[in-house]
C-alpha cells in the first residue's frame, strides 16, 4: 500500500502545470529529434542537459523533461522507419519490416497510430512492473556494500559484451576506453592529477556532455557526408489515421507478451531496446507460423517490436533508479544529468527523494499518453519535417551541438575536444566498434573505482572481500556465464559452419 500512496504523491508532482509543460515540451522535442537522421535519444538527451541546467529547472522537472525526450525520441524514430523505410536507430530496424509495407498499402496512418498504441501498452506494462519491482529492488539493494557494487558493475560491463553478439571483444575494448577516460582529471581521494598533461581544462576531467556530443553528434555528421542520397520521398499518410477496435484487439495478446518480454530485457543491463525488439519480432513470427504474413505488412509484426521497445525503454530505468547502474547508453546519459544536480541514483534515492523517483514514474505514464494523443494531429507536421534535406539540417545540428558543448563550461577548449573526440568516434564507428559501451564505461568508471577502493579500505587491502559474501559470489557466477556466452556462441557458430561445409561436399 505504501507504493500506491507514493505513486499518488508522484502524480501530484507530475501533474503540476509546470511539470506537465516540461513533459509536453519533452515529448515534442524528443519526437522531432528522433525523426531527424543522425540524432537519436542519446544526442537528444545529452543536448538538453546543459540547457535544462541553464534554464534553472528544478531536478524533478529536469528529469521529467529528459525522460519525456527519451520516450519521444524512441517514438520519433518509428515515424521515419514506417514512412521512409529508414530506421532512425538500431532498435527500429524491426519496425521497418512490417511497418513500411503497411504504409505502402495505404495504411500509413493506421500503422503509425497502432505503433504508438503498442508502444504505449508496452510502456504501461513496464511502468507497472517498475512500480511493483523497483521499491523491492531498492530495499534489497540497501544491503549492498562497496564490494557488491563493484562486482555488480563488473557484471554490467561484461553483460554488454555478452549480449552484443557478434563482436564481444570490440564491445569490451570500447567499455574499457570509457572506463579509462573517466580516470582523467584530479583524483578525489589523493589529489593526484591523472593524465591531465598539466592542462587546466582537464583538471576536473572530460565533461560528460562533451564526450557524448563528440562521440555521437560529430561522428554522425561525418558519417552523413558519405550518404549521397537527398531527402527521400516519404509515403503520404492519408486516409484513416486511427486503428479500429478490431485491429487493436487482434494484436492485444502480442502487446501483452512483448511488453513483458521487453520489460525483462530492458531491466537486464546491456540488452536494451535493440535486442528486445529483435527477440520480440522473431518470437511472434515463429508463434504466428504459417498464418502470419510477416514481412508483408502484418500488424502483429509491427506491434511486436514496438511494444518491446516501449517496454524496454521504461524497463531500462529500473536498474538506473534502484541501483544507480545504467543499463543502456541513454540511461547512462541520464545519470550524467543527475550528477549535474548532485543527485546520486541508487537505493537511497527512494527514501531520501521520493518526489523525484515517483514523480518520474508518474510522468512516464503521462508522457506516454501524450505521445498517443499528439500522434493524431501532429502526424502531418512530422512528415513535413522528414522532407528537410540534409544540407539544411547538418549545419544546424553542428551549430546546436556547439552550443550544447559551450553551454557546459563556456570554454572553447571543450569545442576543440569535442571535434577531437568526434574524429576518434568516427574512426571507431568505421572499424565497427560500438559506441555506447564507451559512455557506459565512462559513467561507471568513477563509481567502480570509488567502490573498489572503499571495499579494499574496509578489508585493509585483502582481496577476499570481493568474493566473500553470497551476493558477490552469485554475481561473479553470473558474470562468468556472461563471459562464456559469446565464446559458446562462436564455438557453436563454428561447428555449424563445419556441418554446412560437410553438407556441401
Amino acid at each position, binding site marked *: 500500500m505504501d507504493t500506491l500512496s507514493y505513486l499518488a504523491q508522484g502524480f501530484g508532482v507530475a501533474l503540476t502545470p509546470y511539470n506537465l509543460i516540461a513533459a509536453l515540451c519533452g515529448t515534442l522535442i524528443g519526437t522531432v529529434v528522433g525523426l531527424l537522421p543522425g540524432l537519436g535519444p542519446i544526442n537528444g538527451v545529452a543536448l538538453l542537459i546543459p*540547457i535544462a541546467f*541553464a*534554464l534553472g529547472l528544478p531536478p524533478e522537472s529536469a528529469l521529467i523533461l529528459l525522460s519525456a525526450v527519451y520516450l519521444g525520441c524512441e517514438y520519433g524514430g518509428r515515424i521515419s522507419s514506417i514512412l521512409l523505410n529508414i530506421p532512425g536507430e538500431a532498435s527500429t530496424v524491426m519496425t521497418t519490416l512490417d511497418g513500411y509495407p503497411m504504409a505502402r498499402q495505404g495504411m500509413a496512418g493506421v500503422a503509425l497510430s497502432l505503433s504508438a498504441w503498442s508502444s504505449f501498452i508496452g510502456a504501461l506494462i513496464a511502468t507497472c512492473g517498475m512500480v511493483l519491482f523497483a521499491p523491492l529492488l531498492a530495499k534489497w539493494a540497501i544491503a549492498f556494500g562497496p564490494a557488491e557494487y563493484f562486482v555488480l558493475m563488473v557484471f554490467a560491463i561484461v553483460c554488454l559484451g555478452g549480449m552484443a553478439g*557478434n563482436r564481444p*571483444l*570490440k564491445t*569490451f*575494448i570500447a567499455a*574499457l576506453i570509457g*572506463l*579509462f577516460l573517466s*580516470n582523467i582529471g584530479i*583524483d578525489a*581521494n*589523493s*589529489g*593526484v592529477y*591523472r*593524465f591531465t598533461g598539466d592542462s587546466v581544462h582537464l583538471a576536473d576531467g572530460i565533461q560528460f556532455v562533451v564526450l557524448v556530443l563528440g562521440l555521437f553528434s560529430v561522428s554522425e*555528421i*561525418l558519417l552523413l*557526408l*558519405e*550518404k549521397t542520397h*537527398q531527402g527521400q520521398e516519404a509515403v503520404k499518410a492519408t486516409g484513416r489515421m486511427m486503428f479500429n477496435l478490431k485491429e487493436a484487439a487482434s494484436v492485444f495478446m502480442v502487446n501483452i507478451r512483448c511488453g513483458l518480454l521487453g520489460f525483462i530485457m530492458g531491466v537486464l543491463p546491456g540488452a536494451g531496446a535493440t535486442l528486445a525488439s529483435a527477440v520480440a519480432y522473431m518470437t511472434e513470427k515463429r508463434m504466428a507460423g504459417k498464418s502470419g504474413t510477416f514481412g508483408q505488412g502484418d500488424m502483429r509484426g509491427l506491434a511486436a517490436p514496438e511494444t518491446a521497445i516501449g517496454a524496454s525503454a521504461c524497463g531500462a530505468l529500473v536498474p538506473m533508479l534502484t541501483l544507480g547502474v545504467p543499463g543502456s547508453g541513454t540511461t547512462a546519459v541520464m545519470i550524467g544529468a543527475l550528477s549535474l544536480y548532485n543527485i546520486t541514483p541508487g537505493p537511497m534515492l527512494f527514501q531520501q527523494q521520493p518526489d523525484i523517483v515517483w514523480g518520474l514514474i508518474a510522468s512516464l505514464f503521462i508522457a506516454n499518453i501524450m505521445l498517443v494523443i499528439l500522434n493524431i494531429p501532429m502526424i502531418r507536421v512530422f512528415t513535413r519535417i522528414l522532407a528537410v*534535406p*540534409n*544540407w*539544411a539540417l*547538418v*549545419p*544546424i545540428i*553542428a*551549430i*546546436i551541438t*556547439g*552550443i550544447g558543448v*559551450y*553551454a557546459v563550461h*563556456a570554454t*572553447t577548449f571543450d*569545442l*576543440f575536444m*569535442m*571535434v577531437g573526440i*568526434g*574524429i576518434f568516434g*568516427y*574512426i571507431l564507428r*568505421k*572499424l*565497427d566498434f560500438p559506441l555506447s559501451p564507451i559512455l557506459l564505461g565512462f559513467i561507471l568508471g568513477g563509481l*567502480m*573505482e570509488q567502490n*573498489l*577502493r572503499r571495499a*579494499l*579500505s574496509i578489508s*585493509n*587491502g585483502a582481496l577476499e572481500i570481493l568474493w566473500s559474501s553470497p551476493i558477490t559470489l552469485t554475481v561473479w557466477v553470473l558474470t562468468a556465464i556472461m563471459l562464456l556466452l559469446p565464446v559458446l556462441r562462436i564455438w557453436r557458430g563454428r561447428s555449424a559452419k563445419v556441418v554446412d561445409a560437410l553438407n556441401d561436399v
Partner: protein
Amino acid sequence: MVLQRVFTGALLLVCIALAVMAWPYKASFSYEPVGPRAFPLLMLGLMGLSLLYQLFRPTPIVHSEEEPALDRETLIKIAACIGLLLVFAGLFEPLGFILSSILIGIPMARLYGGRWLASTVVVIIMSIALYLLFDKAMDVPLPLGVLDFVEN
C-alpha cells in the same frame, strides 16, 4: 583489415604510453591500501591484452548494405568538414556565435549538396534565430564577439 590492424596497434601504443605516464602516480600520504594508479593501470592492462588479441586475430568488419566504400572524394569532404568544425571552435569566442556559425554553416551546407543562395539564406536565418532562442529565451550565454556593439 590493414586499417584495423594499424588502428589497433596505434591504440596499443597509446595504452603503453599512458601506462608509463601513470606509473609515478602516488599519493603523497595515504591512508587507504589502493592508491590513485591501481585502477587506471588495471584498465590499461586489460585494454592492452584485448588489443593484443585483436591485433593478431582481427574481427572482420561487417558493412551494412547501403554503406558505400570510402573513396578519395569522400575523404576530402570529411577532412574539409573536420577543418570547418575546428575553425568553428577557434573562432567561436573571437568572432562571436552568430558570425562564426554563419562562416562555417554556409560552406558546410554546400558540402552536403545545398545550393549557394538557399544555403546562405537558411544558415543566416538559423544562426540568428538560434542565438535569440538560446541566449535570450533559454539563458544559455553565447558570445557576441565582434558584434558586441549591437548589445550596447
